[in-house]
């Protein structure tokens, strides 16, 4: 492979890989600037857990933006739902297995309520969700008005934001270099995390190969062989690296598991199901979609409903992580989610945007926050830099789109 090939392949596929490259560069810069602290196992685990609730919101927001709408109410809805779960657990002493589904259902209903005037009356979603923003903020304040911040003690609930998945039971042997006991093999590493990471790498490679073979059989354009191998190596080592770090700390957190499940399910729905195709058709051309027999109002309700559901999930993750719910919970989450989605390549014109892209966008966005915090960058400067990155990402998106046409 010559440099020329590489450059050509890169320019052709820059839209698809630009964000991964950006993430890589940002991580490299922070790693150097913090003398490796940024990529320490503990920080990687932290970063993943911090990204969780924003990534979950960004996934929902992606679909909202794809159908040419916006939802400003998600931040305080998540905050409000976090407060509801705290009240249910701490004040009402309800079992956690009842609280979680109840909050998710409540979130879905709230999302549907926001969508109702949008879908049925054509009210701009900016306005409808701004009303939601005010209403949910009021509800959040009134929920906590008598109590102030509510502490949460339920261990299961707290584990969602802080705990890790369990490991295999491993026989213990005396620690050769000191006191106590250690695992009989691979001491100090989380075995289940390693196994899951390995499975992920294998699954990625196998499915990518199969995909490529199918595409080739239809004579579709595929990236050159060496580029393909390079991509495989890059993704496999990135996955392997994250896995190794997570395994070296406490193992994969529940937040990471939840985030990945959400991303995988939404990504699959958006690409492989009739529902997903209808969503992207509505975003691509609502009139044509309606004339093709797709109920645009129904799709709008569904997408906002799913956004509400994810608000419930994000609220739970955030409250769990803080082990409490306060009156400012969820402030500005909506803008973080929108920023992550745009960094992830969603188009404001509608119809374009990948779920995986938004997750990476969330990761980029939270890496900036996390890395700059580690470096001790002043908060005022942090906002400016994050704003600059958002602007750059969108400019990049628009200009590369233009080149392609």
């Amino acid at each position, binding site marked *: 492979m010559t440099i020329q090939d590489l450059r050509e392949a890169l320019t052709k596929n820059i839209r698809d890989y630009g964000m991964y490259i950006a993430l890589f560069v940002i991580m490299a810069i922070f790693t150097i600037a913090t003398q490796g602290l940024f990529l320490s196992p503990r920080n990687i685990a932290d970063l993943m857990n911090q990204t969780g609730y924003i990534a979950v919101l960004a996934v929902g927001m992606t679909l909202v933006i794809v159908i040419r709408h916006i939802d400003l109410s998600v931040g305080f809805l998540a905050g409000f739902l976090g407060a509801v779960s705290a009240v249910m657990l701490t004040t009402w002493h309800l079992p956690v297995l009842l609280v979680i589904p109840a909050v998710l259902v409540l979130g879905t209903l709230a999302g549907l309520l926001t969508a109702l005037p949008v879908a049925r009356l054509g009210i701009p979603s900016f306005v409808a969700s701004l009303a939601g923003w005010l209403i949910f903020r009021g509800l959040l304040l009134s929920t906590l008005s008598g109590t102030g911040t509510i502490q949460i003690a339920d261990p299961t609930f707290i584990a969602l934001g802080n705990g890790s998945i369990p490991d295999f039971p491993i026989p213990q042997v005396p620690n050769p270099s000191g006191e106590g006991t250690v695992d009989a093999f691979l001491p100090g590493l989380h075995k289940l995390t390693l196994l899951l990471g390995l499975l992920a790498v294998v699954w990625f490679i196998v499915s990518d190969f199969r995909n490529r073979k*199918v595409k080739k059989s239809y004579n*579709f354009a595929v990236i050159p062989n060496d580029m393909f191998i390079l991509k495989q190596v890059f993704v496999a080592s990135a996955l392997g690296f994250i896995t190794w770090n997570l395994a070296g700390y406490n193992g994969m957190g529940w937040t990471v598991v939840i985030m990945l499940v959400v991303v995988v399910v939404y990504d699959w729905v958006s690409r492989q*199901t009739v529902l997903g195709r209808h969503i992207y*058709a509505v975003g*691509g051309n609502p009139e044509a979609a309606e*004339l093709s*027999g*797709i109920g645009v109002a129904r799709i709008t309700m569904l997408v906002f409903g799913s956004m509400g559901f994810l608000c419930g999930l994000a609220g739970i993750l955030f409250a769990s992580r803080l082990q409490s719910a306060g009156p400012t919970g969820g402030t500005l989450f909506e803008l973080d989610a929108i920023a992550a989605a745009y960094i992830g390549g969603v188009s404001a014109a509608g119809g374009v945007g990948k779920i995986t892209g938004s997750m990476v966008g969330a990761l980029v966005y939270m890496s900036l926050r996390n890395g700059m915090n580690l470096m001790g960058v002043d908060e005022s400067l942090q906002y400016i830099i994050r704003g600059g990155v958002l602007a750059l990402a969108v400019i990049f998106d628009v200009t590369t789109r233009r080149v392609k046409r």
Partner: protein
Amino acid sequence: MASHILEMRSISKSFPGVKALDEVSFQVAPGEIHCLVGENGAGKSTLMKVLSGVYPHGSYSGDILFNGKVQSFRGISDSEHAGIAIIYQELALFPELPVFENILMGNELTKGLAIDWNETVHKASEMLKMVRLSVNPELKVKDLGIGQQQLVEIAKALCKDVKLLILDEPTAALNEDDCENLLKLLRELRGHGVTCVMISHRLKEVIQIADTVTVLRDGRTICTLDARKGEVTEAILIKNMVGREITNIYPERKHEKPGDVILEVRNWSGYSPKLGRQVLKAVNFQVRKGEIIGLAGLMGSGRTELAKSIFGNPDGFELEGELLFAGVPRSFRSPKEAIDAGLAYATEDRKGNGLILIQDVKSNITLARLKKISHRGVTDNNLEVKAANEYKNSLNIKTPSVEQKVVNLSGGNQQKVSIGKWLFVEPRVLILDEPTRGIDVGAKYEIYTIMNRLVEQGMSIIMISSELPEILGMSDRIYVVSAGRISGEVSRAEANQEKIMHLATQ
């Protein structure tokens, strides 16, 4: 005769792939009412856009002489400055602003830096008197009727000290009383020395009002007739408008005896709350199995509205009457229900509301019936590619692969994708709205061949078209639509261009 106020000499203007104007000459004498007539696409609007500077000097060839001087307008403001005002069919008013502000928009009366509102209202009232419109100038334009809005537009033009007033189909959206008023006003303005060019499809009113008539056809000037000498009759105008040779670009088809009635509407009327008027008036028609029905008529006559009202009524008309599909009374509440019953509608505006341009060929083809390529809501990519390739081959869609984005295809191939999309739902009745608009002759022929193949297989096709030769070349039966009514039904044997144009301009 006095020298001309306007003379356009050998004007030619091309768009990619079409020559819209070919050496057109056009002369207007001062103080006359000059009507410009021709079929859709004859070049009338293009000519007026050249004149008004919408297409700036340099983008066309030929000379414009106005008031004896060669003009080179670079924009509308130049031509307005010279004293030419053009009023488009789509009114350019601000519905939320009051009448007086609209009349002086772009011509504001100021006192220092601020607008002199008293003087503005005063001047506007004068203008309103001149066009004989007695409404409160403080009213918002959106609260006026269409006819009144038209008069406001004219008042606005007069305000700019206009010498030549151009009206593009001013009466198309007006009722009869408003029409009468407008024509009366034009005569009065003529008395005041205003020269007027009017584009119109309604030949009766042309004969009523014109001093001179120029006929355009296929981007050429056919003739200029002097109405004052009694040269103008409806028959003469129609003959000149349509006198085109029909070349044999229509593939042969056996016109077999058609089968049973598959689709029928009776007394079908529709009111559009959005437009605030009746769009369909007691329409009756039927379609038989294996037939191509031509739906002729001028643009805006209600053909598309008729198609959409049958196809699940997505525009929300208030409908009355009966719709029978395969002999059973039906009422489709959404395009989905219509599609499920076996109807398909390929829209006239394939880029606007037909295709999803940013998606690839296969996604567009399968969109209206994803059920066919999915199991329990999960799509099967292999099935989809296979299905899309079938249509790519059978319709001869020229694209490197079915993963190509539709935006990158040519107009003709986009149209084939649109047809493929609707064939994919396997309809019993296929409505094609302007199926060959903006595509080249070769692609047209292919689309005609596909249509013939489909009806031979027992499908029924309703073809909406503004091109008379196409209507005559392809249809088994023709319905002519005019002003929301069916103004006539013509069999293949008796059809000719004159007859259809006569019905369409009623």
